[in-house]
């Protein structure tokens, strides 16, 4: 018993688990930023919990699952998620590419913290390897 094909078949399709979740996000220079941990979806009229009666779109990529929750399961509270608005996304392939620099995003704060408080304090940290 095979199912009828989807007549409203759109051209460009992304399946969340297959194509978006757990993908690497790169910034405009190709530097890794974080991974896509989840997606935020809102109704087109702005509603928070849409149902089939209105169109719904992805408004942001979410990142910031802590190591513990990623491995053991569960989800951190909404306030701990870092948001990357879909507006910043310029391409989706095997990676998600953004049009902004990683340093402008909140989600990279631990990288900046480690850089400023540990790595920069060790001689040679700011120089290219040579």
């Amino acid at each position, binding site marked *: 018993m*095979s*199912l*009828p*094909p*989807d007549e*409203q*078949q*759109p*051209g*460009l*399709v*992304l*399946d*969340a*688990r*297959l194509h*978006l*979740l757990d993908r690497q996000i790169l910034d405009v220079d190709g530097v890794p930023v974080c991974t896509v941990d*989840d*997606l*935020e*979806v*809102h109704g*087109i009229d702005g509603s*928070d*919990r*849409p*149902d*089939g*009666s209105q*169109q*719904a*779109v*992805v*408004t942001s990529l*979410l990142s910031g699952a802590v190591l513990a929750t990623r491995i053991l399961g569960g*989800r951190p509270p*909404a306030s701990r998620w870092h948001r990357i*608005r*879909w*507006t*910043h*996304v*310029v*391409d*989706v392939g095997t990676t998600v590419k953004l*049009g902004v620099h990683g340093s402008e995003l909140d989600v990279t704060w631990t990288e900046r913290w480690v850089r400023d408080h540990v790595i920069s304090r060790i001689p040679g940290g700011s120089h290219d390897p040579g």
Partner: protein
Amino acid sequence: MILGDLLDSPVLGPDGARVGFVVDVRFALDGPLDGLLAAPRLHGLLVSPRTGTSFLGYERNGVNAPAVLARWFAWRHRGTFLVRWADVESVGRDAVTLRTGFRRVSAALPGSLAQRP
């Protein structure tokens, strides 16, 4: 709404009977422009009669190599179908309920080998 709440959620028919579980969510890049790309519009839910993540989407993309693995994984999630977003009545805390008269449609990805006869 966070997508993770939808994934793996049980799906109930209009009469309350369980129809399957949400294994994936399909988006189409034909929404209103948001930045450089169109915002991904929620097109439908991929529902499988069994739980467990659809491993690697073999039942949808028609990739048939390596042969043994592809056939095994496609078999595991045989019966996966797409339900259009318009057929979703409500997204509750514990389950997704479908509208009366909802239609099951083929889950094959567009342009994939799975669609060819």
